[in-house]
Every structure is written in C-alpha cells, then in structure tokens.
C-alpha cells in the first residue's frame, strides 16, 4: 500500500482521524434523529471487521487499549450516576417493580440462550443483556422530550437505579462464573466481590464526603488527572484480584458523592464518549458477520418479546405511583432501549470466549431495540390516546387537594 511509505505514525494518525471523523458524522446523524449512536458504531465495527485488518492496520492496538479504558469509564460513570443514598432509598421503595423488572426481562434472555444450546453462563449473560435498559438513552430521551417533570418519570428513574443496584451483585457473579474456577475458589471470589461492594457502599455512605473533598479542586486539570488516575488504579487492582476492571470501576463510581459526581460527569463525560466509541468498535470487530444471519430470527423474536416485557414493567411501575394510561405507556416505551451496558455484559463473555454466538446476538439485539425503542417512544402518546379514548375515566388525575 502506498500509505505505508508515509511511515507508521503518519498512517496511525490518518487511520484514527478518518475513523473518528466517520464516527462523528454518524453521531451527528443519530443526534438529528434523536437516536442512540451506538448501533451505528457497531455497524462500523462490523464492516471494518469484514474488510480484514487493512483499514486499521496501525491503529488496531490503540483501539484495543482505548476499548479497555472505555469499558472502565462506562462503568465508572454508571456507578457515578446515582448516590448511595439513592440506591438504598430505591432498594426500599422500588423493590417490587425492581424485582418484576428482573423477573420479566432477565428470564427471556436466559431462556433463549439455553434454547440456542449455549453454556448456562453465556445464557445468564444474555439475560443481563435483555435485562438492563440503557440509562444513557433513557436519560437523553427524557431530557430531549421534556419529560423530566412528568409524573411517571420518578418510576422510570427508580427502575434505572434498581438496575444499577442489581449490577453490584450481577457483575461480580458473572465474572466469577466466567473465570470458571472451582467451587471453593469461586465462593472466595464472590465473597471478595461482595465485600468490595459492601466496602464501596460503606465508604460512600460514611466517608463519601471526605473522600470527595480530597478529590475536590478548583482546577479542572488537577481534577481530571487525579480522578482518572484513581479510577484506573482501582480498576487495575480489581482486575489483578480477578474481580474484573469493570467491577472495580463501577464500585469506584459508587463511592463518590454527588458534588464530585457532577464535576466528574462534566469532565470525564467527553472522555467516556471517546473511549466508549473505541469500545463499541472493538466489540463489533470481534464479531464474524457470517454468524449474524443464523441468529437473526432468534434476535428479532427476543427483541420483540423483551420489548413487550419492558413495556409491561415500566407501565406497572408507573401505575404504582399513580400515573395515568398515557404516563404508563410512556414509562414502558422509554425503557425498551438497551444499549451500552448490554454490550458491556456481552463483552465480558466475548472477551473470555465462552460462546461464539453471544457477540452476534447481543449486537443484533442492541441494533434491533435501538431502532424499535424510539418508534415506540414516539408512538406512546398517540397509541395510549387511541387505546384509552373510549375510557378516559381510567386516567388517574393528580391527587385532589382541597
């Protein structure tokens, strides 16, 4: 190739630049259409994978390292999203909708995984893929459509918090199962993970303020470097203890208080976006496109089924806090979008090579729900109007206050 004559560094920069520019254009398109850019990133990754290594001959390693950092930042920001107070509050208040969410949305994934003849661990991971809604997409939709003030919104947010909480147990569990260690060793790791989780929550509740004060600084530069350093250290230590970097980063995010969280979200958000893009590309690169058609039917079936179960989950949760028919429909439909964390969970399995089809199914599934969810979200109000037009009295108004 003529490009090679330019020297490695020049080609590396050209490759990365072209890739980022392409992703930027796609993200812009997605933003216009109020869609999540993640499916587009996945498609780019899939195509690059089919073209062979040529287009990213020099930047492949950089993308792989970027993907690792992207995973850490994605989970750190997930942990950051809610404070320990909100988690314990949600544990008490939305236990019922939260458990319904697990029952209705984890089960189909596990069942389909087993039907496909997968290893039980891979099936459990697929359950995680279908269970966890994309908090990124949900919060963007709620903000963009001006729904933050709506009556059903606290129910939606509480479900997201609960899913976050469920991840504290789920992530270490699957990590240990993937490692496939003996029972004694496995139990030891689970105990270690739970202890680390409890430790992080304890630190967050008791010492969150002082911990955050240590990080708090007026200088953005100091904050960025120290926080990123701490996150990577914690993630690395967790990986060293075989808890996986993902678990470590998630717990580190949980332990920080609101004040630091706001600053961290502003400063680390752009970095997360950059490295997460690398993560999604790298994930899709590992998928053999030829493995997609055989699972297409399973993907569409699973997508339709779990769209229905999420719709039901959200509706029930919204009804429990007194939202009317429209609100219930809106709450259900907005939760249908799965995204970044479904890919993260599938990525754990793909990285360990436990099931060759897992990557393809997860990618196809996220593509499908990401296309379906915005349509459902936009149709929620008209559909609710039609369904309940004859029976408007079922709409629960605001409580009467004399």
């Amino acid at each position, binding site marked *: 190739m003529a490009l090679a004559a330019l020297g490695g560094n020049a080609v590396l920069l050209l490759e990365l630049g072209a890739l980022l520019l392409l992703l930027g254009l796609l993200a812009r398109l997605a933003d216009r259409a109020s869609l999540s850019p993640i499916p587009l990133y996945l498609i780019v990754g899939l195509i690059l994978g089919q073209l062979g290594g040529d287009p990213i001959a020099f930047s492949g390693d950089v993308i792989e390292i970027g993907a690792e950092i992207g995973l850490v930042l994605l989970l750190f920001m997930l942990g950051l*999203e*809610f404070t320990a107070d*909100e988690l314990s*509050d*949600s544990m008490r208040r939305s236990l019922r909708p939260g458990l319904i969410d697990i029952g209705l949305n984890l089960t189909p994934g596990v069942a389909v995984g087993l039907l496909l003849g997968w290893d039980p661990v891979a099936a459990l991971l697929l359950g995680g893929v279908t269970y966890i809604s994309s*908090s990124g997409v949900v*919060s963007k939709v709620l903000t963009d459509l*001006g*729904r*933050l*003030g*709506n*009556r*059903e*919104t*606290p129910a939606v*947010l*509480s479900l*997201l*918090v609960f899913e976050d909480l469920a991840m504290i147990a789920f992530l270490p569990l699957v990590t240990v199962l993937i490692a496939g260690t003996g029972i004694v060793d496995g139990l030891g790791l689970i105990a270690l993970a739970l202890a680390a989780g409890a430790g992080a929550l304890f630190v967050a509740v008791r010492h969150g303020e002082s911990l955050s004060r240590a990080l708090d600084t007026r200088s953005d530069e100091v904050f960025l470097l120290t926080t990123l350093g701490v996150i990577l250290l914690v993630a690395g230590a967790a990986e060293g203890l075989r808890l996986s970097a993902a678990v470590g980063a998630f717990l580190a995010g949980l332990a920080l208080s*609101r004040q630091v*969280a*706001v600053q961290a979200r*502003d400063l680390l958000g752009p970095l997360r976006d950059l490295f997460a893009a690398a993560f999604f590309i790298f994930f899709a690169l590992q998928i053999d496109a030829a493995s997609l058609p055989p699972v297409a039917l399973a993907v569409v079936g699973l997508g339709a089924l779990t769209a229905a179960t999420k719709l039901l989950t959200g509706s029930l949760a919204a009804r429990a806090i007194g*939202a*009317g028919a*429209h*609100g219930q429909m*809106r709450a259900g439909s907005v939760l249908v979008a799965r995204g970044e964390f479904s890919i993260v969970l599938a990525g754990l399995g793909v990285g360990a090579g436990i099931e060759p089809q897992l990557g393809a199914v997860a990618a196809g599934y996220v593509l499908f729900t990401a296309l379906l969810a915005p349509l459902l979200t936009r149709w929620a109000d008209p559909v609710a109007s039609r369904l309940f037009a004859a029976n408007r009295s079922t*709409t629960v*108004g*605001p409580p009467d*206050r004399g």
Partner: protein
Amino acid sequence: MPDVDETRLPGVGIRHDFLTEEGKRVGVISHFSGRRSLLLYDTDDPDSCRETIELGEEDLRTLADLLGASHVTEHLANLRQSLKGMAIDWLPVEANSPYAGRPLGETEMRTRTGVSIVALIRGGETIPSPAPDETIEADDTAVVVGTADGIGKALALLRGE
C-alpha cells in the same frame, strides 16, 4: 400557600410542584448541576409537561426578581397584620431632615428607638437591609419595623424633633 409536592428524581435532582388557584400545575426541577427547569403541566394529561423551560443562572435571577417583587410587597402587607405588637411603616425623609446626606449609622435609630430600618426606597429602587454606612438622602423612604411607639419616636428622630 398551596401544598408544594416534593419528589426526588434520582440522578437528576429534586422536583417541586403545586396546583395554582386556576387549577393548573406548575413545577420546578432543581438539577444537581445547579440548573433549574420550569415545568408547565398539561391540563388534558396532568401527568405530562406541556412545556419545559430551561433556566440558566441569569434567567433564574431575572425571573425571581420579576416574581419576587410582588411577592415581597404582599408579604410585607401580611406582616403588618400577622405580628402582634409589631408594626411596619414607611417613613419619609424630608429635605430638612438633619440626617439627609448622612450615613444611616449616625441616626443610631435602633439604640435610641428600638426600631430597625429594613430597607430604603430611593426613586423606584429598593435598597434592602441597608448597611450602617449607606447614606440617607432627602426624599428617601425608610421602611422600618418596630413597636408603634418606637415608630413614632423614629419619625420624630428623622425630622430632627
């Protein structure tokens, strides 16, 4: 005041909302980031917002000023009746007052009459909680709080009697 509902929005902030006399629901979200959103609820579907208005810090001050002005006057009017034994009054500072053009502190009003000056009104503007070094000018109006007796003495003091 009507009942104000408080709802926690995990990861976002806190929402306050109430029903206006007219029966419409209005709310405010205080985001953790410090931003505020003003919410106007739909009358047909009371669960959803017809309009969400994002307010920056500057907008917030402007809106608070616009709404606050009438709010304060109303509160003062209520105050007049609600505090037994306390009175609030608007005292004119005439051109021949010995204190016109002199710092507020020199009147020693609180020590001498037990009355506090809570605001000075100059032209159309209000100077709330004026500092002792604030100059009193002729044609100012002093908003004072104290006993009825004290206010009589304060008026005499300002007139130089």
